């Protein structure tokens, strides 16, 4: 499939796995220290694997002689702490990542149901609102791959399920692969279409 993600990654002592993921939400589940976040950071280009290959929608991001910097990968990453820019309003945060002129930041805020906080700074947002702004910001950047590093972990289970379902629907509509990392085994089933279990930096058999 054209927009799938295929990768193999080796980071000495931390991670060794190979996966092919079609569009839609995949859930990467495993205990702390299993290498889940390391895997996302490597896919985003924020840490350099010792060896491997990352091919996204037919484009090689990493491989022999190739190492695209994170700003050219079109891989959006939502951090656990969300990393909203504190000196910008919610709207400015979303605008920051827009690559294509036809994309409207306000539309994405509305789509994530936080249009009413557009002019507010992150420090004044509730946990749920901040999560939605961070998701809107990532999605507005027209990513070819969306990575979510436990972004819902601070929310109560009901809100977590609600937001996860919304993101899952958007990802399905955009037809891009997405990886959601969680250590909540019980959540994994409801969060995505397929589950990948990781333990000690490798796939769990």
């Amino acid at each position, binding site marked *: 499939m054209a927009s799938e993600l295929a990768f193999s990654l080796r980071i000495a002592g931390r991670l060794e796995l190979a996966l092919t993921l079609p569009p839609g939400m995949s859930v990467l589940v495993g205990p702390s220290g299993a290498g889940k976040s390391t895997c996302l950071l490597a896919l*985003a*280009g*924020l840490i350099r694997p010792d060896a491997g290959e990352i091919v996204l929608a037919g484009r090689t991001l990493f491989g022999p002689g190739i190492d695209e*910097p*994170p*700003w*050219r*990968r*079109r*891989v*959006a*990453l939502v*951090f656990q*702490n969300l*990393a909203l*820019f*504190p*000196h910008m309003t919610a709207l400015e945060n979303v605008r*920051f*990542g827009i*690559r294509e002129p036809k994309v409207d930041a306000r539309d994405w805020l509305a789509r994530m149901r936080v249009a009413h906080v557009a002019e507010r700074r992150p420090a004044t947002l509730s946990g749920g609102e901040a999560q939605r702004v961070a998701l809107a*910001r*990532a999605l507005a*950047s027209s990513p070819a791959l969306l990575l979510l590093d436990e972004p819902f972990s601070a929310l109560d289970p009901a809100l977590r399920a609600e937001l996860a379902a919304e993101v899952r629907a958007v990802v399905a509509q955009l037809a891009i692969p997405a990886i959601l990392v969680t250590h909540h085994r019980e959540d994994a089933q409801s969060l995505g279409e397929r589950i990948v279990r990781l333990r000690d930096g490798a796939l769990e058999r």
Partner: protein
Amino acid sequence: MNWSPIWLSLEVAFSATLLAGVVGVALAAWLSRARFWGRELIDVLITAPMVVPPTVLGYVLLRMLGRGSTLGRGFEALTGGSIAFSRTGAIVAASVAALPFVLKNARVAFEDVDARLIAAAHTLGAGPVRTFFRIRLPVARAGVAAGLALGFARSLGEFGITLMLAGNLPGRTQTGALAVYDAVQAGRDDDARGMALLMTALAIAILYVVNKLTARKAHGF
């Protein structure tokens, strides 16, 4: 009271802060992220003017930039003027004195910026330059501004390096600090007192601004 040394001090301090600001902020931004051998050595060399006697520093600069030096001759060939015993020399002296204050404060401020903000900016398509101007500098602005203010205050009060490199030429390189010394030597006590009061007031005002910039909000319940 002769105001020209005060004006010259302000003029030199503004130019020096600009020069030290550009160099110091750029270096701080680089040192706070780069990982290489010798990183701390660069920091130490630039911070040294905080502890090396100003006259020693002035002497070194005079040997490096004076008319007999390669750099000094190069500068003269390019501009027609000399660094030593000129207003340019006073600005260089004040810049060297201000640089450590800018570098130290800005580096701490840049190191305090959450690495995830920088990473997030990168994944949103911003390269290092855009990330610097849109994220790192605005988030670190209070610390950077404090460094600039302290650097300005330090260059305003510069004495030893200026005396060695630029001399004490009334109307040309005699800054406020040098003029106070001159006035005391010449027994012009009224002049010395007036300038001393004014420069002290300026320094205290700047420190007050620095405190305001760096004060963290107290957390209540």
